[in-house]
């Protein structure tokens, strides 16, 4: 209990004093989460619409594979990506190991099945009714696509929140691929692990609280965007 009290005091101090180290880790965490989530959304939206809109032979199989991939352990993704981008890997020449872009590649692989699955589920709900109504009013193919995204925006926002939360709280990929280098790749989560290993339990907890606060701010923002929904 004493640890928790101390942690809260430390967290408050870190937040109020705008500790530069923590700010740097926090910014890095948010940056990685934002870029990974954006990249995945850009790819999964058209893919999700294509899969949700059409009935084809392997549709069910694709959804089963996506659902299975959602439970991939992050350390396994970290290891696989490491083997590809490490010095001896086939993409070794790109020098992505222990860099932020390297971490982003791992995070994209982590959240891709999650977001695609959620987008397909969101667009499958009412999509026939939406597309038929739009076409009945004279919408072109592109206008139908845009209206479908607009009508599913709340569900799509939920998948963005889920993806962002998954990345910002992720530690396995960030550690294995990023290497937890203090000035380059350390994030809030890898910093928590480091502090626990060094015995600074209260400090680790304090950073955890900072991380939770960040997630809260992002969720509040998303909630504001969803504000008009009844």
């Amino acid at each position, binding site marked *: 209990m004493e640890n928790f009290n101390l942690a809260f005091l430390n967290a408050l101090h870190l937040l109020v004093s705008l500790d530069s180290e923590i700010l740097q880790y926090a910014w890095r965490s948010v940056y990685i989460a934002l870029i990974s989530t954006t990249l995945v959304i850009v790819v999964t939206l058209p893919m999700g619409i294509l899969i949700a809109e059409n009935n084809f032979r392997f549709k069910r199989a694709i959804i089963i594979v996506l659902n299975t991939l959602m439970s991939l352990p992050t350390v396994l993704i970290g290891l696989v990506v490491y083997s590809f981008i490490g010095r001896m890997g086939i993409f070794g020449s790109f020098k992505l190991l222990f860099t932020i872009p390297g971490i982003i590649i791992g995070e994209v692989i982590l959240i891709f099945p999650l977001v695609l699955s959620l987008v397909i589920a969101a667009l499958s709900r009412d999509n026939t009714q939406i597309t*038929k*109504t739009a076409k009945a009013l004279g919408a072109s193919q592109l206008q139908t696509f845009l209206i479908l995204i607009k*009508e599913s925006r709340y569900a799509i926002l939920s998948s963005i929140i889920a993806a962002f939360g998954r990345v910002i709280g992720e530690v396995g990929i960030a550690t294995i691929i990023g290497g937890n280098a203090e000035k380059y790749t350390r994030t809030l989560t890898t910093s928590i692990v480091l502090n626990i290993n060094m015995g600074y339990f209260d400090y680790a907890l304090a950073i955890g609280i900072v991380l939770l606060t960040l997630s809260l701010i992002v969720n509040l923002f998303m909630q504001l965007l969803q504000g008009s929904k009844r």
Partner: protein
Amino acid sequence: MNNTVIRLDNISYSYTEDYNSNVHDLVIDHLEIKKGEMLAIMGSNGAGKSTLLEIMGLLCSPKKGDVYINQLRVEANNRSDLRRQVPVLLQSTYLFSTTIFENIALGLRFRKVPEMEIHSRVNRALSIVELTPHANKQYFELSGGEKRRVDLARVLVLETDILLLDEPTTGLDDKSRAIIEDVITELNQKKCHTIVFTTHSHDQVKTLSSNVLRLHNGYILNNEQ
């Protein structure tokens, strides 16, 4: 002068009944709808009424046969353009998650109509279906009958010469039914619009339509004048 606005030749299309998933073939050898005609399509559930209407509205493509809209044969490259000449009021209403005004304006925005004109046309359509006070309400604030009137206003605002209406008054209260029937009659009699609608109501057929087409299991039983 040829005054045929919709023509179907040798149409064949497989459709599934909503209620029991039975698959039927809709087969139409030849059907012509003339300008200014008010055609009622009747038939039991699963007879193919909605499917026929959706084929006329270019919402589904028959596996065989030709569709002509205003004497133009529908092909892949003109399908989207011709679809804008035959708006359909679908059997089940789906209102988009925005205001009533924006729901009605949507079809005009698809056609890139100038904003000033959108305002005047939407306000006119709102007044016709007696929903002017509801213009700024959200879609979920309306009753079932009011939603159906919004649906009709969305089609009216497009000011096309042809309207395809799938069971426009089914399940509505007396007030909404009367408003919709009055609007349809006026459009047909005063403005000479071509209207094709599906219905189960014999009374409605007697009151509204000049012609009746009866369908059974995907086939035309008769075409009465």
